[in-house]
Structures are given as structure tokens and as C-alpha cells.
């Protein structure tokens, strides 16, 4: 069974349908990139996948024993976070909160899991540094470690490379690919960077307020819409 199944799902934003006719499946171990212009419904779909928004029509089903709060989410950064006084460790550990439920304090297991993910992302040296003093790429790694703390199955990344310089962007893409390959964690990424999307992803979902394309990356680059988008977005 698929991990996430969208069946003819539509999502509305303040009464207006933002994206409609979604029919796709995400299987365990997939690397799905969601692409499309600004305002094509990507952010709305993310809210829908996180169960923060119920579909206006159709349904989003979770399979393979996946619960909605077991998705490791990497949101776009907010202004308030840029000068937030917190250590990287505190941020990573907060990823375990969803699993705590009503219990107020973190257990030993939670703390071990946080340290394990810090190691996995190679940010041991940042563990006790202040979040606001880290570079953009380092901050994303910290947030990625936090997302890993919240999930064993799916990572949902909302434009993880926005605002990063090319070198750091490549490093982050490689890191995400490594997580996807080595730990079999499914990756769903919203991206503006179509070149990297086709380079790393196994599947592409192209939105134009409806589902313009869904399928394997090899098919996407040969399709009309894929060729048009790849050509048109090169200097973006």
C-alpha cells in the first residue's frame, strides 16, 4: 500500500479553490519533488498533506501505518526565527515533542534521538551554538535534524534551499539524497529549483492549480510540460 494517496483531492484557501484534481501516490522510499509557479497551490497542498487543511473534495489517505503527526516537516523560516536565542540542541530536541503527547518533559530516549540525528547530519560542532549565529545552511541542517526527530518515514521539505548560496545548496541536496537513500525515508520536497528537482527526485508532481503532471522523473523530462518548464526556468 502507498504511504500517501491523494484521490481526486481539492484544497481551498479562504473559499477559493487553490488546487484541484490531485491524484497521486507516494510510496515508501520515493523522492517526490513538487514544482510549479508561485501561487500554483504548492503551499496549500503541503498544508493538506500535513492535515492542517482538510480537502474541500476528495481525500488524502495515509497508509503503511503513517500518522499525520509523524511527518517530519521543514517549514520555510520565519522572520522571528532569524534572531531567536536557542541552542541548536534545543531546536533539534523540540522535534520529539509531537511524540511526547501530554507528557511534559523529555525522556532519555528523546535526548538520545536528538543527539543521534545531530550526528547523522554532521552538526556536532554546532550542538551548543546559538541558532541565530549560524549561517543559513547550518540553520537548515539544524531544522532538518529536528524534522528527522519527528519522523521515521516521511520528510516534507518546503523550499529547503531558498536563500542559500550555490555551494551550500548543493551540499544540502546531497545530504537529503543521502538520507533518502541510506535510511529509506521518503522525501517530499517543494522546490523552485527545477534543475535540481529533476537531478535528484524519483518522481515529479507539477502543479498549475491542478495536477499538470505526475510521474517518474524520466517521463517528466520527456513530456511537453517538463521540457517547457525546464527551458523556461533556467535563468530563474
Amino acid at each position, binding site marked *: 500500500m502507498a504511504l500517501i494517496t491523494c484521490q481526486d483531492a481539492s484544497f481551498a484557501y479562504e473559499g477559493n479553490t487553490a488546487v484541484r484534481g490531485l491524484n497521486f501516490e507516494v510510496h515508501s522510499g520515493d523522492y517526490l519533488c513538487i514544482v510549479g509557479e508561485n501561487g500554483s497551490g504548492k503551499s496549500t497542498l503541503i498544508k493538506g498533506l500535513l492535515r492542517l487543511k482538510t480537502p474541500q473534495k476528495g481525500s488524502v489517505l495515509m497508509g503503511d501505518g503513517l500518522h499525520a503527526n509523524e511527518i517530519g516537516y521543514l517549514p520555510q523560516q520565519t522572520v522571528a526565527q532569524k534572531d*531567536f536565542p536557542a541552542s541548536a540542541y534545543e531546536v533539534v530536541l*523540540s522535534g520529539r515533542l509531537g511524540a511526547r503527547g501530554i507528557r511534559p518533559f523529555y525522556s532519555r530516549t528523546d535526548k538520545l534521538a536528538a543527539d543521534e540525528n545531530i550526528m547523522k547530519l554532521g552538526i556536532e560542532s554546532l550542538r551548543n551554538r546559538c541558532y541565530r549565529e549560524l549561517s543559513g545552511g547550518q540553520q537548515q541542517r539544524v531544522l532538518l535534524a529536528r524534522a528527522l526527530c519527528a519522523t521515521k518515514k516521511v520528510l516534507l521539505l518546503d523550499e529547503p534551499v531558498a536563500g542559500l548560496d550555490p555551494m551550500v545548496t548543493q551540499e544540502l541536496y546531497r545530504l537529503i539524497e543521502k538520507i533518502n537513500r541510506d535510511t529509506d525515508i521518503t522525501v517530499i520536497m517543494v522546490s523552485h529549483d527545477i534543475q535540481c528537482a529533476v537531478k535528484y527526485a524519483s518522481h515529479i508532481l507539477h502543479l498549475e492549480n491542478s495536477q499538470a503532471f505526475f510521474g517518474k522523473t524520466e517521463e517528466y523530462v520527456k513530456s511537453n510540460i517538463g521540457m517547457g518548464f525546464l527551458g523556461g526556468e533556467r535563468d530563474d
Partner: protein
Amino acid sequence: MIEMLMEMFSYTFLVRAVIVGLLVSLCAALLGVSLVLKRYSMIGDGLSHVGFGTLAIATAMNAAPLTVSIPIVVLAAFLLLRISENSKIKGDAAIALISTSSLAIGVVVISLTTGMNTDVCNYMFGSILAMSKDDVTLSVALAIVVLVLFVLFYNKIFAVTFDESFAKATGTKAGLYNMLIAFLTAITIVLGMRMMGALLISSLIIFPALTSMRICKKFRSVTICSAIVSVICFFIGVVISYVYATPTGASVVIVNIAAFLLFWVTNIVLRRSKS
């Protein structure tokens, strides 16, 4: 020095005021860290003005001030929170609207009933004589409730403060915890308002957090540091107000300003010496 303190604490009203004040400054400092980081500082200011209005009405009705103020200010807190979250309505403008409205209503109510006298001045700038024995019991009980809830929900408050979308996505009820923060803030403000004054109480929330953020780098250390700074500043402020016969609220704020400047300069010196 010790003699002077002994003399000071031979007055029961001062002992009461200091007990309540210390507890309130502790609560305010803890909540302040989250409020300042969430860009909700103005909510505290708005609430204190609403509190002023309710105090005036309570006095006019001859009702117990705390029991009237607390429910209304809690309601106002939820309303202000709703407004701030919905950025389509200009949040800061709405807060200014609500706070000036309550101020105006309060002033009119006072002038119609008791007349504009020292009462108004006491409400605005605080009076250390305002605490009755019942007030102290209620204040201490409520302050302990605020402290216990804060400690129990510390991790959740951190998560919601740092990143609401992530917290929501992983199943933390962010809206609920925002309401908890607003609720605790409302209670803290009402408790501290008559001593510190409606115009000055929000400084107890904002100053300690900003002061400790100059130096501390972790959320936990910021929280602990602001609690300590707040309590110490309050105590020094009360002693100064006793010795120089200055208004308590304003004296505490002055000490807080001094602490802020001290931390600010320390941070600059530390950074210089590192580089």
C-alpha cells in the same frame, strides 16, 4: 543597609507588596521571553490598559477589583491574540484602538464617580498601598498557578514560540498553547497592575527578556536569566522607592533600564574582547 531593610520590612503593607511583587515579576519575566520572541509585546501593553478600564469600573461598582478585572482582561487577551494572528486586520492598530478605548472609558468612569483625584494617579502609575490582605492571598495563589503551568508546559511553549508551523504539523495544538500564554499573561498583568501602574506594568514583561537576550544564547538560559534579573530589579526598585520616597512602579522600571544598559554594554565588551 541591613538595619534599613529591617526597618522597611517592619511595615506589613510593604512585606505584602514585596511578596506579591516578586511573584508577579517572576511570572512576567518567564512569560515575557515568549511574548517578546513571538512579537506579542504590544499585547501586554494593550492588556494593561484594558485592566485600567476594568479597575475603574470595578471601583465605581464597589466590587472587588481583582474578581472583576481578571475575567475581562482574560477575554481581552484572547481577543487581542485573535487579532494579532490574523494579520489582515492591522494587529498593532487594533491593539492601540482597544487600549486607548479602555483608557478613555476608565477615565470617564472615574471622573463621573469619584472624580479625578489621586485614585487615577494610583491606577496609572501604581501604588504600593493598593494591596489588601485578601488580594495578597489571591495573588500568591494565582502566581503559583502561573508558575506551575509555565514549568509544566515549558517545552511546548518553546516549540510554539520557535516555530508554530512545525509544532502544528507534528501534532502540537499551537492555538491552545497560544491561548495558554495569553491567559497566563492576562492574570499576571492584572495582579501586577495596581502596584506597577497600568502604564508601566508591561515593562515587567518586556525588559527582563530583552535584557537577558543581550547575553544569553539558549532559550533555557534566557528564561532563567530573565527570571533572576526581574526579581533582583524589582527588589532593588522597591528599596530605592522606600529610601528616596519615589513611586514604586517607576523606580522598578528605572532599575530595569539600568540592567538592560549594563547587559548591553557587557555584550559589546565581550564581543570586542573575542574578536
